[in-house]
């Protein structure tokens, strides 16, 4: 009985510590975002010429400051998502979700960005339609957003990103294919590690925190699913996510 009481107390203490951690992250990220928002807006005003013309040198420095600020914002956003996905006090809310509808919503969200970057974003809708799956809709949304965003980010101009989904042996298999920079052999084993950034992504100065794929894998595994990728012979990468239907 004493042992059980001791375990109960320890459990309560851990829960409290976890809640405190979440509160600290929530407050800190909110405050950080407030400062970064102000910086983002002011730097953009300089870049757009709202406060007068800049010299070439000034413009170059301000652009670098803007990109650096975006990088910090990205890190804060990704930390928040990671915290949410790992928070043991937040149980995943599993329910029946129409995955086709969810993918269509996300494609719509990213349409503007893909047009801006001159990347074709195409959903290969399955025929016949597939059944609803049991998942946490918001966390599954994060998975799809991360993969599609990465594909657009790492694609070259005029490239195409294809998203497809099919039913297979009690699972749904989602694939997100791009013809972009690919993943180098030396990076393959590390691509899902926390804070890891592939060498070619760093070389291309593409903004990223190194948390996106780590968080994505975390969420997929909480669904008892799998995530993996293949480099394509003609260049680019296809990421696959397999999630149980029930």
């Amino acid at each position, binding site marked *: 009985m004493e042992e059980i009481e001791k375990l109960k107390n320890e459990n309560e203490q851990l829960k409290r510590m976890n809640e405190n951690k979440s509160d600290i992250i929530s407050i800190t990220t909110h405050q950080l*975002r407030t400062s970064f928002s102000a910086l*983002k807006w002011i730097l953009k005003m300089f870049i757009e010429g709202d406060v007068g013309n800049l010299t070439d040198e000034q413009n170059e420095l301000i652009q670098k400051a803007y990109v650096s600020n975006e990088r910090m914002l990205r890190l804060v956003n990704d930390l928040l998502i990671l915290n949410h996905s790992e928070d043991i006090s937040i149980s995943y809310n599993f329910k029946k979700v129409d995955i086709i509808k969810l993918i269509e919503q996300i494609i719509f969200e990213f349409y503007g960005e893909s047009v801006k970057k001159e990347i074709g974003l195409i959903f290969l809708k399955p025929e016949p339609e597939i059944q609803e799956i049991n998942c946490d809709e918001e966390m599954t949304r994060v998975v799809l957003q991360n993969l599609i965003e990465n594909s657009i980010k790492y694609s070259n101009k005029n490239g195409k990103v294809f998203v497809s989904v099919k039913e297979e042996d009690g699972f749904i298999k989602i694939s997100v294919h791009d013809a972009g920079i690919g993943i180098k052999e030396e990076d393959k084993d590390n691509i899902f590690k926390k804070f890891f950034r592939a060498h070619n992504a760093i070389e291309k100065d593409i903004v990223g925190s190194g948390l996106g794929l780590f968080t994505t894998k975390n969420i997929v595994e909480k669904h008892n699913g799998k995530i993996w990728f293949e480099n394509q012979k003609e260049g680019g990468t296809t990421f696959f996510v397999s999630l149980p239907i029930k």
Partner: protein
Amino acid sequence: MKKILIIEDDSFLQGLEAGKLEKEGYNVITASSGQEAMKKINEPDIDIILQDLVLPDFDGFEILKKIKETDKLKNVPVIVFSNLSEPKEVKQAKDLGATDFMVKSNFTLDELVQKIKSILK
């Protein structure tokens, strides 16, 4: 001239938002607290409200609820403009009648203006 009420407690951000919207030709009124917001919502002819959620004196969701319960404002679009972004917070705002939920740090002021224009069209 369309009228916008900005409810934002951070004076620096409020200044930047108001400055930009005035430059774009909007008639801007501001509130820096929930209490001030409750007074300003009585002003006539507000066309759209831009509302923060973290306010010094009131829960932003309570303010949103009160706005939507006010007869003359229930059809006025409210954009929640906050640096909170948990899915449950977004859902709560939308359930209370927010037209849109924009995370401040994800948008430039130009993009905010585009959103306001598209809602007011």
